[in-house]
Protein backbone atom coordinates (compact mmCIF):
# COMPACT_ATOMS: atom_id res chain seq x y z
CA UNK A 1 0.00 0.00 0.00
CA UNK A 2 1.28 3.40 -0.89
CA UNK A 3 1.18 6.30 1.53
CA UNK A 4 2.26 9.89 1.40
CA UNK A 5 3.91 10.93 4.65
CA UNK A 6 3.32 14.65 4.60
CA UNK A 7 5.53 17.06 6.49
CA UNK A 8 3.71 20.21 7.46
CA UNK A 9 6.12 22.81 8.68
CA UNK A 10 5.66 25.72 10.99
CA UNK A 11 8.70 27.95 10.42
CA UNK A 12 8.30 29.63 13.79
CA UNK A 13 8.65 26.32 15.55
CA UNK A 14 11.63 25.29 13.46
CA UNK A 15 13.37 28.64 14.00
CA UNK A 16 12.91 28.37 17.74
CA UNK A 17 15.11 25.27 17.80
CA UNK A 18 18.82 25.51 18.61
CA UNK A 19 21.24 24.89 15.77
CA UNK A 20 22.12 21.58 17.35
CA UNK A 21 18.49 20.54 17.40
CA UNK A 22 18.03 21.59 13.79
CA UNK A 23 21.06 19.56 12.78
CA UNK A 24 19.68 16.59 14.66
CA UNK A 25 16.48 16.83 12.61
CA UNK A 26 18.48 16.95 9.37
CA UNK A 27 20.64 13.99 10.38
CA UNK A 28 17.50 12.16 11.41
CA UNK A 29 16.15 12.49 7.87
CA UNK A 30 19.37 11.00 6.50
CA UNK A 31 19.01 8.04 8.80
CA UNK A 32 15.33 7.65 8.01
CA UNK A 33 16.03 7.67 4.27
CA UNK A 34 18.70 5.02 4.70
CA UNK A 35 16.35 2.85 6.76
CA UNK A 36 13.47 2.89 4.31
CA UNK A 37 15.77 2.46 1.33
CA UNK A 38 17.21 -0.67 2.85
CA UNK A 39 13.80 -2.03 3.79
CA UNK A 40 12.54 -1.48 0.27
CA UNK A 41 9.76 0.85 1.36
CA UNK A 42 10.99 4.13 -0.08
CA UNK A 43 9.58 5.30 -3.40
CA UNK A 44 10.68 8.88 -3.24
CA UNK A 45 11.02 12.02 -1.19
CA UNK A 46 11.10 15.70 -2.01
CA UNK A 47 11.66 18.79 0.08
CA UNK A 48 9.89 21.90 -1.17
CA UNK A 49 11.28 25.41 -1.32
CA UNK A 50 9.82 28.10 0.91
CA UNK A 51 6.20 28.95 0.09
CA UNK A 52 7.21 32.58 -0.50
CA UNK A 53 8.77 31.29 -3.73
CA UNK A 54 5.42 29.88 -4.91
CA UNK A 55 2.99 31.40 -7.32
CA UNK A 56 -0.60 30.43 -7.99
CA UNK A 57 -2.03 30.20 -11.48
CA UNK A 58 -5.74 30.70 -12.10
CA UNK A 59 -7.32 30.54 -15.51
CA UNK A 60 -10.37 32.78 -15.84
CA UNK A 61 -12.21 33.20 -19.12
CA UNK A 62 -9.38 31.29 -20.74
CA UNK A 63 -6.75 33.71 -19.47
CA UNK A 64 -4.17 32.71 -16.89
CA UNK A 65 -3.72 35.09 -13.98
CA UNK A 66 -0.62 34.58 -11.86
CA UNK A 67 -0.30 35.76 -8.28
CA UNK A 68 2.82 35.46 -6.14
CA UNK A 69 2.74 33.59 -2.88
CA UNK A 70 1.22 30.36 -1.60
CA UNK A 71 -2.27 29.02 -2.26
CA UNK A 72 -3.17 28.98 1.41
CA UNK A 73 -2.17 31.61 3.92
CA UNK A 74 -1.51 29.78 7.16
CA UNK A 75 1.06 29.25 9.88
CA UNK A 76 1.91 25.83 8.46
CA UNK A 77 2.92 24.97 4.96
CA UNK A 78 3.67 21.83 3.00
CA UNK A 79 7.41 21.47 3.37
CA UNK A 80 7.99 18.08 1.83
CA UNK A 81 6.94 14.48 1.72
CA UNK A 82 7.99 10.88 1.62
CA UNK A 83 6.19 8.51 -0.74
CA UNK A 84 6.42 5.00 0.69
CA UNK A 85 5.08 1.59 -0.24
CA UNK A 86 4.58 -0.54 2.85
CA UNK A 87 2.67 -3.50 4.18
CA UNK A 88 -0.15 -1.74 6.03
CA UNK A 89 -1.45 1.49 7.47
CA UNK A 90 0.00 0.42 10.82
CA UNK A 91 3.44 0.22 9.24
CA UNK A 92 2.95 3.63 7.59
CA UNK A 93 2.22 5.09 11.01
CA UNK A 94 5.31 3.39 12.37
CA UNK A 95 7.36 4.96 9.59
CA UNK A 96 5.83 8.39 10.17
CA UNK A 97 6.84 8.16 13.82
CA UNK A 98 10.45 7.65 12.72
CA UNK A 99 10.54 11.01 10.92
CA UNK A 100 12.31 13.46 13.24
CA UNK A 101 9.76 16.24 12.69
CA UNK A 102 7.11 14.04 14.29
CA UNK A 103 8.84 14.47 17.64
CA UNK A 104 8.90 18.27 17.52
CA UNK A 105 6.43 20.07 19.76
CA UNK A 106 3.63 21.54 17.69
CA UNK A 107 4.39 19.50 14.57
CA UNK A 108 3.18 16.17 13.22
CA UNK A 109 3.34 14.00 10.13
CA UNK A 110 0.19 13.44 8.12
CA UNK A 111 -0.24 9.89 6.81
CA UNK A 112 -2.45 9.80 3.71
CA UNK A 113 -3.20 6.74 1.59
CA UNK A 114 -2.52 7.13 -2.10
CA UNK A 115 -5.52 6.45 -4.31
CA UNK A 116 -5.01 3.79 -6.87
CA UNK A 117 -6.61 3.54 -10.23
CA UNK A 118 -7.63 0.09 -9.15
CA UNK A 119 -10.23 -1.86 -7.31
CA UNK A 120 -12.47 -4.90 -7.37
CA UNK A 121 -15.86 -4.78 -9.03
CA UNK A 122 -18.79 -4.68 -6.72
Amino acid sequence: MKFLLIMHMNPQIFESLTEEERNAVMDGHGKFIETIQQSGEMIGTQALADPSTSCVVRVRDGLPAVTDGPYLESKEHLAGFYLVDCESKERAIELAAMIPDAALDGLGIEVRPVMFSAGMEM
Partner: protein
Amino acid sequence: MEIEVLLRRLAPQVLGTLTRRYQQFDACEDAVQDALLAAAERWPQSGVPDNPRGWLTTVAARRFVDHIRSEQARRRREAAAAALEPPDEFLDPELDGEQPGSRDDTLSLLFLCCHPVLTPASQVALTLRAVGGLTTAQIAQAFLVPEATMAPRISRAKQRIKAAGASFRMPSEREWPERLAAVLQVLYLMFNEGYAATSGPELQRHELTREAIRLTRAVHHLLPDDGEVAGLLALMVLTDARSAARTDEHGTLIPLAEQDRALWDTRLIEEGSQLITTAMSTSQLGPYQLQAAIAAVHVQAPTADDTNWYEISVLYQILSRIAPNPMVTLNHAIAVAMTRGPTAGLDVLDTLRTDHRMTRHHRYHAVRAHLLEQAGDRLAARDAYRTAARLATSIPEQRYLRSRVARIPTDAVEKIGENS
Protein backbone atom coordinates in the same frame (compact mmCIF):
# COMPACT_ATOMS: atom_id res chain seq x y z
CA MET B 1 8.07 -22.11 -27.36
CA GLU B 2 8.62 -18.46 -26.72
CA ILE B 3 11.96 -17.87 -24.98
CA GLU B 4 10.51 -16.00 -22.04
CA VAL B 5 7.92 -18.71 -21.39
CA LEU B 6 10.63 -21.37 -21.59
CA LEU B 7 12.85 -19.46 -19.16
CA ARG B 8 10.03 -19.06 -16.66
CA ARG B 9 9.25 -22.76 -16.80
CA LEU B 10 12.89 -23.72 -16.32
CA ALA B 11 13.70 -21.16 -13.61
CA PRO B 12 12.44 -23.14 -10.59
CA GLN B 13 13.94 -26.37 -11.94
CA VAL B 14 17.39 -24.85 -12.31
CA LEU B 15 17.16 -23.12 -8.96
CA GLY B 16 16.04 -26.39 -7.38
CA THR B 17 19.01 -28.27 -8.81
CA LEU B 18 21.44 -25.63 -7.61
CA THR B 19 19.96 -25.20 -4.16
CA ARG B 20 19.84 -28.92 -3.57
CA ARG B 21 23.51 -29.11 -4.50
CA TYR B 22 24.88 -25.99 -2.79
CA GLN B 23 22.28 -25.29 -0.06
CA GLN B 24 22.81 -21.52 -0.08
CA PHE B 25 19.43 -20.42 -1.36
CA ASP B 26 20.20 -16.70 -1.48
CA ALA B 27 23.40 -16.99 -3.51
CA CYS B 28 21.92 -19.70 -5.76
CA GLU B 29 18.90 -17.52 -6.45
CA ASP B 30 21.16 -14.63 -7.52
CA ALA B 31 23.15 -16.99 -9.75
CA VAL B 32 19.99 -18.30 -11.45
CA GLN B 33 18.77 -14.75 -12.08
CA ASP B 34 22.11 -13.97 -13.71
CA ALA B 35 21.81 -17.06 -15.87
CA LEU B 36 18.23 -16.17 -16.89
CA LEU B 37 19.32 -12.66 -17.85
CA ALA B 38 22.26 -14.05 -19.84
CA ALA B 39 19.91 -16.43 -21.67
CA ALA B 40 17.36 -13.70 -22.38
CA GLU B 41 20.16 -11.67 -23.92
CA ARG B 42 21.91 -14.39 -25.88
CA TRP B 43 19.27 -16.88 -27.03
CA PRO B 44 17.31 -14.55 -29.31
CA GLN B 45 20.49 -14.18 -31.39
CA SER B 46 22.24 -17.51 -31.03
CA GLY B 47 19.08 -19.60 -30.91
CA VAL B 48 17.89 -21.77 -28.02
CA PRO B 49 20.53 -24.39 -27.17
CA ASP B 50 19.68 -28.07 -27.58
CA ASN B 51 19.60 -28.52 -23.85
CA PRO B 52 18.36 -25.21 -22.45
CA ARG B 53 18.07 -26.48 -18.93
CA GLY B 54 21.64 -27.79 -18.98
CA TRP B 55 22.85 -24.49 -20.41
CA LEU B 56 21.15 -22.51 -17.64
CA THR B 57 22.36 -24.88 -14.94
CA THR B 58 25.95 -24.64 -16.19
CA VAL B 59 25.92 -20.87 -16.38
CA ALA B 60 24.19 -20.51 -13.00
CA ALA B 61 26.59 -22.95 -11.34
CA ARG B 62 29.57 -21.05 -12.72
CA ARG B 63 28.17 -17.76 -11.49
CA PHE B 64 27.56 -19.31 -8.10
CA VAL B 65 31.07 -20.67 -7.79
CA ASP B 66 32.55 -17.39 -9.04
CA HIS B 67 30.54 -15.55 -6.46
CA ILE B 68 31.58 -17.84 -3.62
CA ARG B 69 35.20 -17.65 -4.70
CA SER B 70 35.21 -13.88 -4.79
CA GLU B 71 33.42 -13.77 -1.46
CA GLN B 72 35.98 -16.07 0.00
CA ALA B 73 38.84 -14.20 -1.59
CA ARG B 74 37.46 -11.14 0.03
CA ARG B 75 37.53 -12.90 3.34
CA ARG B 76 40.94 -14.33 2.56
CA ARG B 77 39.83 -17.86 2.82
CA GLU B 78 41.07 -19.19 -0.49
CA ALA B 79 41.76 -22.57 0.98
CA ALA B 80 38.08 -23.33 1.33
CA ALA B 81 37.38 -22.39 -2.29
CA ALA B 82 39.55 -25.22 -3.50
CA ALA B 83 37.14 -27.64 -1.86
CA LEU B 84 34.27 -26.47 -4.04
CA GLU B 85 33.57 -28.70 -6.98
CA PRO B 86 34.20 -26.98 -10.28
CA PRO B 87 31.02 -26.58 -12.26
CA ASP B 88 32.15 -28.79 -15.15
CA GLU B 89 32.38 -31.83 -12.93
CA PHE B 90 29.16 -31.00 -11.21
CA LEU B 91 27.32 -31.02 -14.48
CA ASP B 92 26.99 -34.66 -15.22
CA PRO B 93 24.51 -35.34 -18.03
CA GLU B 94 21.84 -36.86 -15.81
CA LEU B 95 21.35 -33.49 -14.14
CA ASP B 96 20.36 -31.95 -17.44
CA GLY B 97 17.47 -34.12 -18.45
CA GLU B 98 14.04 -34.24 -16.88
CA GLN B 99 14.53 -35.75 -13.49
CA PRO B 100 12.30 -36.91 -10.67
CA GLY B 101 13.60 -34.10 -8.45
CA SER B 102 11.74 -31.35 -10.28
CA ARG B 103 8.36 -32.19 -8.73
CA ASP B 104 9.58 -31.69 -5.21
CA ASP B 105 11.82 -28.83 -6.25
CA THR B 106 9.02 -26.52 -7.33
CA LEU B 107 7.04 -27.27 -4.20
CA SER B 108 10.08 -26.98 -1.92
CA LEU B 109 10.88 -23.63 -3.49
CA LEU B 110 7.34 -22.43 -2.95
CA PHE B 111 7.49 -23.51 0.67
CA LEU B 112 10.80 -21.72 1.09
CA CYS B 113 9.59 -18.48 -0.53
CA CYS B 114 6.38 -18.52 1.52
CA HIS B 115 8.27 -19.02 4.76
CA PRO B 116 6.44 -17.67 7.83
CA VAL B 117 9.32 -15.32 8.78
CA LEU B 118 8.46 -13.17 5.74
CA THR B 119 5.69 -10.61 5.42
CA PRO B 120 3.02 -11.50 2.84
CA ALA B 121 4.24 -8.83 0.41
CA SER B 122 7.79 -10.19 0.58
CA GLN B 123 6.53 -13.74 0.13
CA VAL B 124 4.75 -12.69 -3.05
CA ALA B 125 7.75 -10.81 -4.42
CA LEU B 126 10.20 -13.61 -3.69
CA THR B 127 7.89 -16.25 -5.14
CA LEU B 128 7.54 -14.25 -8.35
CA ARG B 129 11.30 -14.09 -8.69
CA ALA B 130 12.47 -17.50 -7.48
CA VAL B 131 9.60 -19.68 -8.66
CA GLY B 132 8.08 -17.50 -11.37
CA GLY B 133 11.39 -16.48 -12.91
CA LEU B 134 10.41 -12.80 -13.20
CA THR B 135 13.14 -10.19 -13.05
CA THR B 136 13.22 -7.65 -10.25
CA ALA B 137 12.35 -4.96 -12.80
CA GLN B 138 9.25 -6.87 -13.91
CA ILE B 139 8.13 -7.43 -10.33
CA ALA B 140 8.67 -3.76 -9.50
CA GLN B 141 6.63 -2.81 -12.55
CA ALA B 142 3.83 -5.14 -11.54
CA PHE B 143 3.62 -3.53 -8.11
CA LEU B 144 4.02 -0.01 -9.54
CA VAL B 145 7.12 0.77 -7.51
CA PRO B 146 10.62 1.67 -8.73
CA GLU B 147 13.13 -1.15 -9.12
CA ALA B 148 15.22 0.57 -6.43
CA THR B 149 12.36 -0.10 -4.01
CA MET B 150 11.83 -3.72 -4.99
CA ALA B 151 15.47 -4.85 -5.11
CA PRO B 152 16.28 -4.32 -1.41
CA ARG B 153 12.91 -5.82 -0.50
CA ILE B 154 13.80 -9.06 -2.27
CA SER B 155 17.34 -9.25 -0.97
CA ARG B 156 16.09 -8.55 2.53
CA ALA B 157 13.58 -11.36 2.20
CA LYS B 158 16.39 -13.71 1.22
CA GLN B 159 18.50 -12.57 4.16
CA ARG B 160 15.64 -13.23 6.54
CA ILE B 161 15.21 -16.72 5.17
CA LYS B 162 18.91 -17.32 5.59
CA ALA B 163 18.88 -15.91 9.13
CA ALA B 164 15.92 -18.10 10.04
CA GLY B 165 17.97 -21.11 9.01
CA ALA B 166 15.22 -22.19 6.65
CA SER B 167 16.32 -25.03 4.46
CA PHE B 168 15.44 -26.24 1.02
CA ARG B 169 13.32 -29.26 1.84
CA MET B 170 9.74 -30.35 2.04
CA PRO B 171 8.15 -29.38 5.36
CA SER B 172 7.43 -32.23 7.76
CA GLU B 173 4.01 -33.82 7.78
CA ARG B 174 3.11 -31.86 10.87
CA GLU B 175 3.93 -28.50 9.26
CA TRP B 176 2.57 -29.39 5.85
CA PRO B 177 -1.04 -28.14 6.04
CA GLU B 178 -0.06 -24.82 7.55
CA ARG B 179 2.73 -24.25 5.06
CA LEU B 180 0.59 -25.22 2.09
CA ALA B 181 -2.04 -22.78 3.34
CA ALA B 182 0.63 -20.05 3.29
CA VAL B 183 1.57 -20.96 -0.29
CA LEU B 184 -2.07 -20.77 -1.40
CA GLN B 185 -2.47 -17.45 0.39
CA VAL B 186 0.53 -16.04 -1.49
CA LEU B 187 -0.82 -17.24 -4.84
CA TYR B 188 -4.20 -15.74 -3.96
CA LEU B 189 -2.60 -12.39 -3.05
CA MET B 190 -0.59 -12.43 -6.25
CA PHE B 191 -3.75 -12.97 -8.25
CA ASN B 192 -5.69 -10.27 -6.41
CA GLU B 193 -2.89 -7.77 -6.78
CA GLY B 194 -3.09 -8.19 -10.52
CA TYR B 195 -6.84 -8.51 -10.74
CA ALA B 196 -7.60 -5.42 -8.67
CA ALA B 197 -5.80 -3.29 -11.25
CA THR B 198 -8.17 -2.05 -13.88
CA SER B 199 -6.83 1.09 -15.45
CA GLY B 200 -3.63 2.96 -16.05
CA PRO B 201 -0.75 0.56 -16.41
CA GLU B 202 -3.10 -2.41 -16.31
CA LEU B 203 -1.26 -4.39 -18.96
CA GLN B 204 1.69 -4.84 -16.67
CA ARG B 205 -0.55 -6.14 -13.95
CA HIS B 206 -2.07 -8.88 -16.09
CA GLU B 207 1.37 -10.33 -15.69
CA LEU B 208 0.47 -11.03 -12.07
CA THR B 209 -2.84 -12.77 -12.67
CA ARG B 210 -1.29 -14.85 -15.44
CA GLU B 211 1.64 -15.81 -13.26
CA ALA B 212 -0.60 -16.64 -10.29
CA ILE B 213 -2.74 -18.90 -12.45
CA ARG B 214 0.31 -20.53 -14.01
CA LEU B 215 1.89 -21.28 -10.62
CA THR B 216 -1.38 -22.49 -9.12
CA ARG B 217 -1.81 -24.78 -12.13
CA ALA B 218 1.67 -26.14 -11.44
CA VAL B 219 0.81 -26.81 -7.79
CA HIS B 220 -2.48 -28.42 -8.81
CA HIS B 221 -0.58 -30.61 -11.24
CA LEU B 222 1.74 -31.70 -8.39
CA LEU B 223 -1.05 -32.16 -5.83
CA PRO B 224 -4.09 -33.13 -7.92
CA ASP B 225 -5.96 -34.59 -4.95
CA ASP B 226 -5.82 -31.49 -2.77
CA GLY B 227 -9.28 -29.93 -2.82
CA GLU B 228 -8.16 -26.49 -1.71
CA VAL B 229 -5.49 -26.25 -4.40
CA ALA B 230 -8.11 -27.18 -6.98
CA GLY B 231 -10.54 -24.77 -5.33
CA LEU B 232 -8.09 -21.88 -5.55
CA LEU B 233 -7.31 -22.64 -9.18
CA ALA B 234 -11.03 -22.79 -9.95
CA LEU B 235 -11.60 -19.50 -8.15
CA MET B 236 -8.87 -17.78 -10.15
CA VAL B 237 -10.00 -19.21 -13.46
CA LEU B 238 -13.67 -18.33 -12.86
CA THR B 239 -12.74 -14.81 -11.80
CA ASP B 240 -10.38 -14.33 -14.71
CA ALA B 241 -13.12 -15.52 -17.08
CA ARG B 242 -14.97 -12.25 -16.45
CA SER B 243 -12.01 -9.93 -16.89
CA ALA B 244 -12.94 -8.62 -20.37
CA ALA B 245 -16.35 -7.49 -19.12
CA ARG B 246 -15.22 -5.77 -15.93
CA THR B 247 -14.48 -2.27 -17.19
CA ASP B 248 -15.82 0.08 -19.81
CA GLU B 249 -13.69 2.03 -22.27
CA HIS B 250 -12.95 4.68 -19.61
CA GLY B 251 -11.65 2.10 -17.17
CA THR B 252 -14.72 2.46 -14.97
CA LEU B 253 -15.67 -0.73 -13.13
CA ILE B 254 -18.85 -2.41 -14.28
CA PRO B 255 -20.73 -4.18 -11.48
CA LEU B 256 -21.26 -7.90 -11.97
CA ALA B 257 -25.00 -7.50 -12.56
CA GLU B 258 -24.43 -5.04 -15.41
CA GLN B 259 -21.62 -6.86 -17.19
CA ASP B 260 -22.04 -8.03 -20.78
CA ARG B 261 -21.99 -11.78 -20.24
CA ALA B 262 -21.20 -12.41 -23.90
CA LEU B 263 -17.70 -11.11 -23.13
CA TRP B 264 -17.09 -13.79 -20.51
CA ASP B 265 -14.65 -16.51 -21.47
CA THR B 266 -16.72 -19.68 -21.79
CA ARG B 267 -13.68 -21.91 -22.05
CA LEU B 268 -12.41 -20.71 -18.66
CA ILE B 269 -15.90 -20.96 -17.14
CA GLU B 270 -16.08 -24.54 -18.35
CA GLU B 271 -12.67 -25.37 -16.90
CA GLY B 272 -13.35 -23.69 -13.55
CA SER B 273 -16.76 -25.29 -13.14
CA GLN B 274 -15.31 -28.71 -13.89
CA LEU B 275 -12.49 -28.20 -11.39
CA ILE B 276 -14.75 -27.09 -8.57
CA THR B 277 -17.35 -29.77 -9.15
CA THR B 278 -14.72 -32.50 -8.99
CA ALA B 279 -12.98 -30.98 -5.98
CA MET B 280 -16.15 -30.58 -3.94
CA SER B 281 -17.31 -34.12 -4.61
CA THR B 282 -13.99 -35.77 -3.80
CA SER B 283 -12.31 -33.83 -0.99
CA GLN B 284 -12.93 -32.08 2.28
CA LEU B 285 -14.66 -28.71 1.93
CA GLY B 286 -12.55 -25.60 2.43
CA PRO B 287 -12.78 -21.82 2.01
CA TYR B 288 -11.26 -21.67 -1.49
CA GLN B 289 -13.65 -24.32 -2.77
CA LEU B 290 -16.60 -22.42 -1.32
CA GLN B 291 -15.48 -19.15 -2.88
CA ALA B 292 -14.98 -20.91 -6.20
CA ALA B 293 -18.43 -22.50 -5.89
CA ILE B 294 -19.93 -19.05 -5.34
CA ALA B 295 -18.06 -17.68 -8.35
CA ALA B 296 -19.34 -20.65 -10.36
CA VAL B 297 -22.97 -19.98 -9.42
CA HIS B 298 -22.52 -16.37 -10.56
CA VAL B 299 -21.03 -17.19 -13.94
CA GLN B 300 -23.39 -20.05 -14.71
CA ALA B 301 -26.41 -17.75 -14.72
CA PRO B 302 -27.27 -16.68 -18.29
CA THR B 303 -28.45 -13.28 -17.00
CA ALA B 304 -27.99 -11.47 -13.68
CA ASP B 305 -31.67 -12.02 -12.89
CA ASP B 306 -31.24 -15.77 -13.25
CA THR B 307 -28.59 -15.86 -10.50
CA ASN B 308 -29.38 -18.50 -7.91
CA TRP B 309 -29.05 -16.23 -4.87
CA TYR B 310 -30.47 -18.82 -2.54
CA GLU B 311 -27.60 -21.18 -3.33
CA ILE B 312 -25.11 -18.32 -2.94
CA SER B 313 -26.50 -17.32 0.45
CA VAL B 314 -26.25 -20.92 1.67
CA LEU B 315 -22.64 -21.13 0.45
CA TYR B 316 -21.79 -17.86 2.22
CA GLN B 317 -23.40 -19.13 5.38
CA ILE B 318 -21.19 -22.24 5.34
CA LEU B 319 -18.19 -20.09 4.51
CA SER B 320 -18.84 -17.74 7.42
CA ARG B 321 -19.01 -20.78 9.68
CA ILE B 322 -15.76 -22.43 8.60
CA ALA B 323 -13.80 -19.24 7.90
CA PRO B 324 -15.45 -16.31 9.70
CA ASN B 325 -14.42 -12.98 8.28
CA PRO B 326 -16.25 -9.62 8.11
CA MET B 327 -15.93 -9.52 4.30
CA VAL B 328 -17.73 -12.85 4.11
CA THR B 329 -20.49 -11.49 6.36
CA LEU B 330 -20.77 -8.49 4.06
CA ASN B 331 -21.24 -10.70 1.02
CA HIS B 332 -23.61 -12.91 2.94
CA ALA B 333 -25.72 -9.83 3.64
CA ILE B 334 -25.96 -9.13 -0.09
CA ALA B 335 -27.04 -12.69 -0.83
CA VAL B 336 -29.62 -12.59 1.96
CA ALA B 337 -30.98 -9.30 0.61
CA MET B 338 -31.32 -10.87 -2.83
CA THR B 339 -33.37 -13.78 -1.47
CA ARG B 340 -35.26 -12.29 1.47
CA GLY B 341 -35.28 -8.59 0.70
CA PRO B 342 -33.14 -5.54 1.59
CA THR B 343 -34.31 -5.30 5.20
CA ALA B 344 -33.19 -8.85 5.96
CA GLY B 345 -29.85 -8.01 4.32
CA LEU B 346 -29.50 -4.86 6.43
CA ASP B 347 -30.08 -6.97 9.55
CA VAL B 348 -27.14 -9.20 8.65
CA LEU B 349 -25.06 -6.12 7.86
CA ASP B 350 -25.95 -4.63 11.22
CA THR B 351 -23.85 -7.29 12.97
CA LEU B 352 -20.79 -5.51 11.55
CA ARG B 353 -21.74 -2.09 12.87
CA THR B 354 -19.29 -2.28 15.76
CA ASP B 355 -16.48 -3.79 13.70
CA HIS B 356 -14.00 -0.96 13.40
CA ARG B 357 -12.20 -2.55 10.43
CA MET B 358 -15.43 -2.60 8.48
CA THR B 359 -16.82 0.80 9.34
CA ARG B 360 -13.59 2.33 7.99
CA HIS B 361 -13.97 0.30 4.82
CA HIS B 362 -15.85 1.71 1.83
CA ARG B 363 -17.36 -1.68 0.94
CA TYR B 364 -19.41 -1.76 4.11
CA HIS B 365 -20.92 1.64 3.39
CA ALA B 366 -21.37 0.89 -0.30
CA VAL B 367 -23.35 -2.27 0.44
CA ARG B 368 -25.33 -0.50 3.12
CA ALA B 369 -26.11 2.33 0.73
CA HIS B 370 -27.27 -0.12 -1.88
CA LEU B 371 -29.59 -1.96 0.49
CA LEU B 372 -30.94 1.27 1.95
CA GLU B 373 -31.71 2.49 -1.55
CA GLN B 374 -33.54 -0.74 -2.32
CA ALA B 375 -35.44 -0.45 0.94
CA GLY B 376 -36.56 3.02 -0.17
CA ASP B 377 -34.59 5.05 2.37
CA ARG B 378 -33.02 7.41 -0.13
CA LEU B 379 -31.71 9.99 2.29
CA ALA B 380 -29.79 7.44 4.31
CA ALA B 381 -28.68 5.74 1.09
CA ARG B 382 -27.24 8.95 -0.27
CA ASP B 383 -25.36 9.59 2.96
CA ALA B 384 -23.95 6.08 2.94
CA TYR B 385 -22.89 6.37 -0.73
CA ARG B 386 -21.12 9.61 0.14
CA THR B 387 -19.29 8.03 3.06
CA ALA B 388 -18.34 5.08 0.86
CA ALA B 389 -17.00 7.39 -1.87
CA ARG B 390 -14.88 9.26 0.67
CA LEU B 391 -13.37 6.06 2.04
CA ALA B 392 -12.74 4.38 -1.30
CA THR B 393 -9.08 4.38 -2.29
CA SER B 394 -9.65 3.36 -5.86
CA ILE B 395 -10.53 5.90 -8.52
CA PRO B 396 -12.94 3.70 -10.54
CA GLU B 397 -14.78 2.71 -7.38
CA GLN B 398 -15.00 6.27 -6.21
CA ARG B 399 -16.33 7.32 -9.59
CA TYR B 400 -18.93 4.57 -9.45
CA LEU B 401 -20.07 5.52 -5.93
CA ARG B 402 -20.34 9.21 -6.82
CA SER B 403 -22.47 8.28 -9.81
CA ARG B 404 -24.80 6.41 -7.45
CA VAL B 405 -25.14 9.56 -5.31
CA ALA B 406 -26.02 11.51 -8.44
CA ARG B 407 -28.58 8.90 -9.52
CA ILE B 408 -30.76 9.48 -6.48
CA PRO B 409 -33.35 12.08 -7.54
CA THR B 410 -32.70 15.46 -5.99
CA ASP B 411 -36.28 15.89 -4.75
CA ALA B 412 -35.54 13.06 -2.36
CA VAL B 413 -32.54 14.80 -0.91
CA GLU B 414 -33.53 18.42 -0.48
CA LYS B 415 -32.97 18.25 3.24
CA ILE B 416 -29.65 16.54 3.02
CA GLY B 417 -27.47 19.57 2.32
CA GLU B 418 -26.83 20.44 5.94
CA ASN B 419 -25.86 16.93 6.93
CA SER B 420 -22.76 16.56 4.83
